[in-house]
């Protein structure tokens, strides 16, 4: 869709290029996040794509066509552009703002208002309420929605977003990010997204390019793999501490090999049965299920010595349960809350499915790291041969 070939930018009067011989293939229908420390050239790179900054070397290929020297105004009408400051036209209504590119492209007069309403619905603004308002009457979050709607105006296949949620309060930002991801699931646009925030990159990116100075790519991969296997110290430092934990967000409980021979008894079973089950296993805790297989209590050796209380009232109650669709990050949180240091996986009806514990997570992380490492080893091998 879009490919940069050895693109560079050297500003007049400077020796060191801002972007140096960048090769970048932008995957179609995905969000590619360019992330890196200040001054690494990520914004410049983004603006080279729609030639808001003219490259001083290399080629930009868009849809198989070399657009390095076509009319930049015409090129930009085919590419959506969202910036942090949004830049809505203050003297135009919301509808006029959104209609900007369709008007430039000379769309049919009847078609434009329909398209505007459609876009406003898409970004969650009621057209009848907001169509005729002016930008100054909007909150920051609403203005950013209009910014996105305006960029989508003529349904461009490509969207460039320069820190689009950077100037918005954390709560609204989180909501806008989620809405945008939902929108993208439908739209499947090719998106290049610039941010300096690694957490935003992990959340938004199908793929992440971590850039170092002069826009050199330090690592280009899925967020999962970058977190599991940072290729060098620069990437490790940039993604920071806790990257392993962040990686747990991408794994789901349902994909685990659940330990299904965990010692359990039913509330209706007798005490001897419980004792026997616990002794037969090497676990320290026994899980008590009710008649519908729902976990209710954790029981250990000491609890079983008491015979005056029924099984369903022995030991600490089960508080940590996770659904199969939960992430391992959720599971870890539940685990830390539980007395036994384990979380029960339950299905939609609350029925016991298995147990996740720290060992399970450690295994997953080791496996992720190993497979990411193998991926890079294989790459190195193919390049070597």
């Amino acid at each position, binding site marked *: 869709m879009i490919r940069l070939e050895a693109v560079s930018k050297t500003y007049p009067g400077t020796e060191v290029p801002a972007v140096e011989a960048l090769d970048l293939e932008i995957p179609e229908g995905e969000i590619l996040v360019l992330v890196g420390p200040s001054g690494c050239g990520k914004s410049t790179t983004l603006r080279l794509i*729609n030639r*808001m900054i003219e490259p001083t070397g290399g080629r930009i290929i868009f849809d198989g066509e070399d657009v390095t020297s076509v009319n930049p*105004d*015409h*090129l*930009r*009408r085919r590419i959506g*552009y969202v*910036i942090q*400051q*949004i*830049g*809505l*036209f*203050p*003297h*135009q*209504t919301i509808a006029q703002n959104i209609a*900007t*590119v369709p008007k*430039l492209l000379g769309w049919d007069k009847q078609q434009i208002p329909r398209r505007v309403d459609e876009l406003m619905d898409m970004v969650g603004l009621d057209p009848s*309420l907001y169509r005729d*308002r*002016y*930008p*100054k*009457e909007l909150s920051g979050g609403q203005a950013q929605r209009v*910014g996105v709607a*305006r*960029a989508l*105006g003529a349904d461009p296949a490509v969207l*460039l977003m320069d820190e689009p949620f950077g100037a918005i309060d954390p709560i609204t930002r989180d909501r806008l990010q989620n809405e945008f991801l939902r929108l993208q699931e439908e739209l499947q646009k090719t998106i290049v997204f610039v941010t300096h925030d690694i957490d935003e990159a992990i959340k938004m990116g199908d793929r992440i390019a971590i850039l170092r100075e002069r826009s050199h790519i330090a690592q280009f991969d899925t967020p999962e793999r970058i977190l599991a296997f940072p290729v060098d110290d620069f990437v490790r430092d940039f993604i920071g501490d806790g990257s392993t934990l962040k990686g747990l967000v991408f794994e789901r409980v349902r994909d685990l090999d659940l330990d299904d021979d965990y010692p359990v008894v039913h509330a209706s079973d007798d005490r001897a049965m419980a004792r026997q089950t616990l002794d037969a296993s090497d676990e320290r805790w026994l899980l008590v299920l009710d008649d519908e297989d729902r976990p209710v209590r954790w029981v250990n050796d000491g609890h079983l010595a008491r015979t005056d209380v029924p099984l369903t009232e022995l030991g600490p109650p089960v508080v940590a349960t996770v659904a199969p669709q939960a992430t391992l990050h959720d599971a870890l949180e539940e685990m830390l809350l539980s007395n036994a240091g384990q979380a029960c996986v339950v299905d939609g009806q609350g029925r016991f499915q298995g147990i996740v514990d720290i060992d399970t997570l450690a295994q997953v992380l080791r496996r992720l790291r190993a497979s990411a490492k193998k991926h890079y080893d294989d790459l190195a091998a193919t390049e070597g041969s």
Partner: protein
Amino acid sequence: MGAAVTSDVALDRVKSARGLLVAPLGIAALAFGIFRLVDSTDLSTVEERNLAWEVVRPQILDHLYLTFWSTVLVIVIAVPLGIVLTRPGYKRFSGPVLAVATSGQALPAYGLVVLAFALMGRGQWSMIWALVLFALLPVLRNTMVGLEQVSASVIEAGRGMGLTRRQALTKIELPLAVPVILAGVRTALVINVGMATLGFLIGAGGLGIGISSGIKLSRELVIVVYAALTAVVALSVDWIASVIERVLRPKGL
């Protein structure tokens, strides 16, 4: 919340509309005051000759003619000049050009009129050009300031969507600069109304004739009436300009 915002905007409009109605009442009161003053005074022959409507009317018309054409020329010259001087590549000329415009305003008004007379002789157009030079600065400066204060991100967003340079100028920058430019034009208008009283010096007519006769003949009544008439013209012109400003000011600002 949305409704509250809208009604605030509406309220502001009502308030400023009320402001626009106050000025004409004041102007009318002043004009009526002049009329009553003249009407209730026993005029001497000299005064009567100087205050007759047939004498006053052409002076007012000349005065308006000088003001109108000088302001039109100022706009025609200063606005495009201001646009050019804010384009990349021409910014470096803005210093020298502003210096010339500033000196135009810094010259003594009297000297400027004499200079125009020396260069172009007697007549209304000599005076009009003197006025143009005198009032160029506020419009030029406001055009430049008005264009420069348009937020860079708004222009960036527009260009990023594929507006050409010219479209960015005509659809974004100029509309957003209109209030500031018009404020400059208003200043120029008021300057020109006042300055046009010097037009009589080089045969350009205007209310200065009456004031000057009043002084020469030592008739205070004549001086007061013409000075007040000049004020009425200045205030009326300024009021009309403020109405135009209101109409042309883009909504949403």
